């Protein structure tokens, strides 16, 4: 068992009015090792906040998060986090960005660079190792950000709308890569997304959040084998079912 989210609530005090906004209310989730779980829901439902609380970037107002039985008190290199956008260090070139985490943790640079080149090859960026982020397209930057997190061998990966800015081909390619890595290395992945097709394609379970306050509305289990066929009836039915559920949530 990897993550235990117990009775997590989060209240924000909005700046000008001193009004309390309940962003999350009584979130309870257990996520098993090696599981791929997606968080979906209308915007403002607190799915990203939940992800950030699991990483340790934010503290819950109430409740606890445990990672392998240990209380989460702050970010850790055991939990890789991939941001939506623009998280590369602009003063480092691609390869130095990729080995940032390895450097921080005192790994020998020569070996790290060799591994980084292998990872860069898997996303087709081996010729861009010496380039700077400002010279890359949005999709290329995001691929670098993804392998920068993957290379650290963290037990889990938390991804916040990581693929949302990519074109569809790159997106599909990276989805398959993430799936492969997740299954091979038994990584636990929590994936926040707006793209229901993506959630159904990737996830073992989909958690649907409701809005204001953010609560877990429903959890879908998906038992289909990988690679999943986007055209098959079962897939399409699931997608519409999830969309319907979010729609209902939105009307509440």
């Amino acid at each position, binding site marked *: 068992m990897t993550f235990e989210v117990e009775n997590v609530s989060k209240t924000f005090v909005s700046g000008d009015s001193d009004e309390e906004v309940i962003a999350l209310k009584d979130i309870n989730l257990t996520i098993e090792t090696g599981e791929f779980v997606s968080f979906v829901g209308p915007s403002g439902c607190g799915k990203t906040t939940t992800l950030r609380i699991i*990483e340790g*970037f934010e503290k819950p107002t109430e409740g606890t998060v445990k990672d392998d039985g240990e209380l989460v008190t*702050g*970010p*850790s*290199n055991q*939990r*890789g*986090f991939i*941001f939506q956008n*623009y*998280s590369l*260090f*602009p*003063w*480092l070139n691609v390869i130095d960005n990729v080995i*940032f*985490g390895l*450097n*921080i*943790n005192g790994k020998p640079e020569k070996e790290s660079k060799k591994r980084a080149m292998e990872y860069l090859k898997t996303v087709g960026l081996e010729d861009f190792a010496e380039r*700077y*982020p*400002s010279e890359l397209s949005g999709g290329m930057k995001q691929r670098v950000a993804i392998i920068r*997190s993957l290379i*650290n061998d963290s037990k889990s990966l938390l991804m916040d709308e990581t693929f949302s800015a990519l074109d569809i081909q790159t997106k599909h390619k990276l989805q398959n890569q993430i799936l492969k890595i997740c299954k091979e290395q038994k990584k636990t992945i929590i994936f926040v997304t707006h793209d229901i097709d993506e959630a159904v394609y990737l996830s073992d379970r989909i958690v649907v959040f409701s809005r204001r306050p953010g609560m877990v509305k429903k959890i879908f289990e998906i038992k289909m084998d990988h690679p999943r066929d986007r055209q098959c009836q079962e897939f399409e039915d699931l997608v519409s079912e999830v969309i319907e559920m979010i729609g209902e949530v939105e009307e509440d």
Partner: protein
Amino acid sequence: MKKFRNEYTKETLILPIILIIIWYIVCDVFQLIPSFMFPGPTDVANSFVRLAVSGKLFKDVFDTLYKVLFGMLLASVVGITFGIILGWSKRLETLCKLVISILRPIPPIAWIPFSIIWFGIGIGPAVFIIFMGCVFPILISTIDGVHRTDPVLIEAAESFGASNSQMLTEVIVPSSLPYIVSGLKVAIGIALMCTISGEMIGSSSGIGYMILTSTSLFDTGSTVVGMLVIGIIGIIFDYIFTKIQERIFW
């Protein structure tokens, strides 16, 4: 990010050439202004040759540059160090805020009396005044740079397990660098201004001293040489810092 350009083309030479011609006509051809009031280009050229041949000019330039760089170095060490500390710690910044706000607007030349009492005559007063003039712009821009560090980059580094000191050296400092360099660029201009003022009062060497003493000997040609040399030094520093900025603004 935005590109810095200060390219000097042929067009930029047009106005200076016209000005020199007018100056020549007014002062040398028609002699409308007596040379003890303002020298003509011929006087300036003569003074320049005399000062250059005797080696006095290079000695004075070297002297002034030495003070500028020494004062800047001290101001940079103090300004950048404290800038990073105060930018990092909200509490210390609040603690120091009022003191900085009061000291900052005091013109550096207001420190001249104390600089002479404390450091006597020599390079000491000038270096001190340069320090007082430069330390605040460097401090403020460093604090600003630290504050402007993208929170996403800090969180990214945290998720890789960066310690506080690694956060400082691997994220905060590189990310503040462009702002620090902008501060240094502003400071070098102030440093030149301070040096000349300082040299006019508490000093017996340097371009400022040369400007002041040559006027009292009615050698206004040397005064203008000194002024132009300062202008040229200013352009060179500006060029150097612009080049550095081009390299580090990603």
